[in-house]
């Protein structure tokens, strides 16, 4: 494996936490409608809690509108048809509500191969770190994609 080919620069972009997107996500995840006023008395009518997995769609606000793994596909480094999502890990440093604007930074943190009885599996580990307007960490997501190399 040529290490230099995996030396991708981090991508940083704005991630506005939109009220409508929070509501759309909650409803798509079969939650009660979060816009009902009785749902959370601590929030104002203009605020909705950000669903936990919503930051995974932050790539829609990135310059190239693609998740980190797709950048590798676009460079011909990974075959999407042989790639599976292995796992996800979220760290929440504090809750986020609609109306905030976060800064997201995507980066590829590790690539390693594992030999198995069915062939080589390549593990691609990505991290997206979200910070508030004052630069403090808000949320970190680590994603593992697995590519079957045959």
């Amino acid at each position, binding site marked *: 494996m040529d290490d230099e080919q995996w030396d991708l620069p981090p991508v940083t972009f704005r991630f506005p936490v939109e009220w409508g997107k929070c509501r759309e996500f909650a409803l798509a995840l*079969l939650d009660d409608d979060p816009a009902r006023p009785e749902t959370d008395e601590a929030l104002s009518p203009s605020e909705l809690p950000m*669903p936990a997995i919503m930051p995974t*769609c932050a790539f829609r606000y990135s310059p190239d509108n693609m998740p980190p793994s797709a950048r590798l596909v676009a460079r011909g480094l990974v075959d999407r048809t042989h790639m599976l999502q292995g796992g996800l890990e979220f760290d929440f440093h504090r809750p986020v509500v609609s109306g905030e604007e976060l800064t997201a930074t995507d980066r590829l943190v590790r690539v390693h191969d594992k030999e198995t009885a069915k062939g080589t599996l390549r593990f691609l580990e990505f991290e997206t770190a979200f910070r508030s307007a004052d630069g403090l960490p808000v949320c970190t997501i680590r994603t593992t994609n697995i590519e079957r190399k045959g």
Partner: protein
Amino acid sequence: MAEEQSAPPRLRIEDLQVGSSMPDRRVGPITQEHLIRFAGAGGDFNRFHYDAEFVRSRGFENIFAQGLFTAGILGQTLTSWAGPDLLRKLKVRFAEPVWLGDTLTISATVTRAYTTEAGPLWADLDCVVTSSGGRQVLTGSATVGAAI
């Protein structure tokens, strides 16, 4: 859309102890409408989640749900129970596909309860999403805890 679901009652974190469980939540049966609605929200229009002919051409028996859909339902269930301000960590591993028609049961059990500098009590939970026939489709862990 025939749908079976129930939200668990809100957590009192001071009541948590090892062995405590979040009330199980049942969701389903999962329909094509669910997956399309989630694709629109999240932007994942992979054909495995709506194009039956394509899916079968790739050797799968049926359309299956986005992994994030299942992870998201777990996340929403945890935050409905604990409150969005108490979820600190969530880790998931996708074990098996969720097929159209599956009904999911979302469960979580406390494995460790402890105090930290950040709050009066935090708790680690083992999480599992079980599908029709008892298949574990997602396993994971979560941490809930009050802020200072």
